[in-house]
């Protein structure tokens, strides 16, 4: 009986590896559950590549099977919430960036507001929001700044905004005030018709 159960587990794991060859690197005990999560995500129209990468990351780190499964399951749930907030037309990179923003503390309503405010891909604004929170900027401040900038700023301006905030924080500014000040300066630059927003903001640029 025990041998039969072992054989069944091996067969399921082999089938899972056949569906996604990269899962062969994943612990045998985690392979079948991860493959099942991939199947569910695929059926729900969610991107599966981030889930595969999460499983591979856990494997490279030597994480035990139960932690790999839990991490993949949690990411699948985040991807589902992000897609729900961003709408069915959301592209895979947007869904993945949205999942990271939710994990960082942004609310689903923020994702929906961003979708309404910006008629361009949302990958960069969501990434900037996530990175700001990771830099120590409170979620509310980061959200307010990105929501305001996302209406008009280009992707390049948003990335430059994030870099400027990180520089200010590194120079000793409090994360919240850095985000607010830089957002204000970026907006002032955007309203200056004589210079593009990412070139001249009236604020000295650091090297």
């Amino acid at each position: 009986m025990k041998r039969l159960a072992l054989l069944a587990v091996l067969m399921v794991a082999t089938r899972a590896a056949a569906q996604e060859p990269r899962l062969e690197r994943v612990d045998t005990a985690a392979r079948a559950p991860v493959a099942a999560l991939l199947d569910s995500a695929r059926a729900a129209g969610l991107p599966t590549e981030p889930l595969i990468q999460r499983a591979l990351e856990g494997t490279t780190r030597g994480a035990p099977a139960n932690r790999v499964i839990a991490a993949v399951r949690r990411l699948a749930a985040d991807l589902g919430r992000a897609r729900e907030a961003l709408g069915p037309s959301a592209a895979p990179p947007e869904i993945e960036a949205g999942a990271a923003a939710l994990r960082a503390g942004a609310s689903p309503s923020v994702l929906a507001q961003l979708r309404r405010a910006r008629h361009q891909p949302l990958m960069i604004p969501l990434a900037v929001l996530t990175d700001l929170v990771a830099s120590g900027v409170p979620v509310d401040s980061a959200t307010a700044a990105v929501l305001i900038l996302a209406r008009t700023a280009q992707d390049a301006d948003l990335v430059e905004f994030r870099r400027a905030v990180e520089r200010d924080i590194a120079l000793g500014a409090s994360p919240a005030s850095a985000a607010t000040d830089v957002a204000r300066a970026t907006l002032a630059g955007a309203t200056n018709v004589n210079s593009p927003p990412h070139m001249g903001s009236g604020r000295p640029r650091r090297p």
Partner: protein
Amino acid sequence: MFDRIVAHLRAPVRIDPAFDERVMAEIATLPVPTPVRPAAAWRRLAPFAGLAVAATALVLIARPTPPTRRLQFVVVAPQAATVSLVGDFNDWDAARTPMRLLRADGPVWSAVVPLAPGRYHYAFLVNGSRWLPDPAAPVASDDGFGAPSSVVTVRGT
């Protein structure tokens, strides 16, 4: 009786000398079928095939390929024997992107990776076991594995 029958059967058959001519004359009256010529079929399809090839070439030439940027990853890792760059751009495979020492007498390790626009998670793997996030890059949100990874965002333009 039996011998007579056998002798009759063995007797040579007499054929009318004009039989062959009559058969050939009959055959000559039949309509001649048009032979199937592959070259003719190809001539009919050639314009369409040419158009298809031209359209495919146009699509391949005009298709915007994502601009790839060569990003240099650098880390200071004193007393490291090996350092690998692992991330979701190389399936977190430590064997795929080994880093090399910038100078033989210094602990600065480097690797250059071409990346299409997107957001990538990565870390440095020192001596095959120590997980090291990039101190110069934003930290990735908690992935459930303990020590954090880093993120890099590659813009499209």
